[in-house]
């Protein structure tokens, strides 16, 4: 069971990083971006196709990251151009349309056959007390921790981070101060696109990785973001890792094994019912 939980940390790290992207997008970009993982899939499959075509792995990875950044920036540009004044609900509906569109494009461009995604983090890293820790799990957990810390520092210390925080608190006032909201928005989409790709590049070789199941990793990521209330970065990271570990542990309980993918939904429902118990009015309307 412990071994299962540790193995689950690979996916958990991915949930955490994707959840961080969702939290950032919600806080700073006013959207629940259900297309977040699907954007990452663009990068992963670009890498995979190039690597299969003989391009060196790390060059292919770079190309994948660039592809995802471009696609994300394009989507972010459209969002800023046409839906600048729209509310979170409507922007999120757009993100759902993005998700459907991206999945279609990915099938069209990369084909519908499942692919084995090449990776370099295959083997075990260490065995502690009879429990094997894989390289992928270690990298994913480290990535979750580092990205949480990095993003926190970025938001707290840099000029751009400061402007993003100002925008998230009072968009109109920030624009009146000359803060270029659209450009920052596009940048935000691009950066989260790159982060999503990066973490999926680690996870994809470890599992059954068709476009859809990777794209729907956004669901457990939503659960993670909900743990942090779509606000707290640390809460999101902890939520993601915990969810992955729980799923991994359940995978070792034979009666529950086939239902472990129900865990994110149960988590979402429970968190929402608990955290929203005091809310009554949709403040704006």
């Amino acid at each position, binding site marked *: 069971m412990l071994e299962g939980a540790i193995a689950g940390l690979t996916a958990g790290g991915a949930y955490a990083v994707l959840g961080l992207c969702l939290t950032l997008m919600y806080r700073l970009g006013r959207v629940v971006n259900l297309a977040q993982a699907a954007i990452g899939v663009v990068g992963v499959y670009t890498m995979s196709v190039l690597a299969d075509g003989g391009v060196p792995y790390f060059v292919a990875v770079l190309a994948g990251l660039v592809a995802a950044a471009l696609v994300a920036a394009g989507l972010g540009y459209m969002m800023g151009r046409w839906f600048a004044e729209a509310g979170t609900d409507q922007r999120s509906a757009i993100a759902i349309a993005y998700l459907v569109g991206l999945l279609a494009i990915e099938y069209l461009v990369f084909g519908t056959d499942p692919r084995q995604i090449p990776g370099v983090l295959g083997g075990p890293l260490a065995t502690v007390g009879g429990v094997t820790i894989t390289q992928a799990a270690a990298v994913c957990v480290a990535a979750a921790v580092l990205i949480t810390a990095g993003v926190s520092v970025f938001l707290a210390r840099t000029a751009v981070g*400061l402007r993003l925080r100002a925008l998230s*608190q009072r968009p*109109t006032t920030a*624009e009146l101060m000359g803060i270029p909201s659209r450009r920052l928005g596009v940048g935000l989409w691009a950066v989260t696109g790159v982060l999503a790709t990066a973490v999926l590049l680690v996870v994809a070789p470890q599992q059954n990785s068709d476009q859809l199941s990777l794209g729907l990793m956004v669901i457990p990521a939503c659960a993670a973001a909900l743990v942090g209330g779509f606000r707290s970065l640390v809460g999101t990271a902890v939520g993601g890792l915990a969810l992955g570990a729980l799923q991994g542990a359940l995978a070792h309980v034979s009666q529950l094994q086939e239902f472990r993918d129900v865990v994110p939904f149960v988590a979402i429902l429970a968190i929402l019912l608990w955290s929203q118990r005091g809310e009554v009015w949709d403040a704006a309307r």
Partner: protein
Amino acid sequence: MTSSLVLDDVTVARGGAPIVRGVSLTAPAGEVTALLGPNGAGKTTLLESVSGVIPITGGTVSLNGGRLNALDRVARARAGIAHVEQGRTVFPDLTVAENILVVRRGPGVIDKALELFPELHKRLDVAASLLSGGEQQMLVLARALAARPSALLIDEMSLGLAPVIVQRLLPVVRDLAASGVAVLLVEQFATLALKIADTAHVLSGGTLTYSGPAAGLRSAPERLHAAYLGEPLPGVAGGS
């Protein structure tokens, strides 16, 4: 007169209904221009159309000779418009220092912006949401100054503030104008604004009903009473 904010025949509609109709006025640099009028007269709407929060339906707005109509609010801010909105719009979760640095970073920016508000110096690391109302209003003004604007639009500065605080802020606005900024001051509390204004305009029902020297209104408070309370009020002196 080196530079100025000029509104020419400006019309603004909201939801199909015209709120401001054919307003023309000039706010010269170095002066405080007061825009007075009862609530619902369209003062805020007019300011918002100048800074680009809402679009202008007709007429032109120009700053130092350059037309602003086609620019969005970000570009207008960069062209030199600073808009202090109603309701003390600090960034609540940012500290006092961050609220200023978000506009401009660099050595001395904070010191320069807080020159007129020394009391904020001790509270640089306090989150803006924890400041008192008066301090928040000072911070919003300081933040606008950090952008080094050519024109400063101030909307209802005294709203919800104790009179003592307002008393403290008014000379600051005066000093700001003296430093070469064109200040357009929207104020519901007319007598306050008239104390520091050079020129005054009264907006009523979307059109200007008085334009002239502020002194003209100071000495004839019955005009104000008519615009505000519906009819002249005997027995209440408006100004000094």
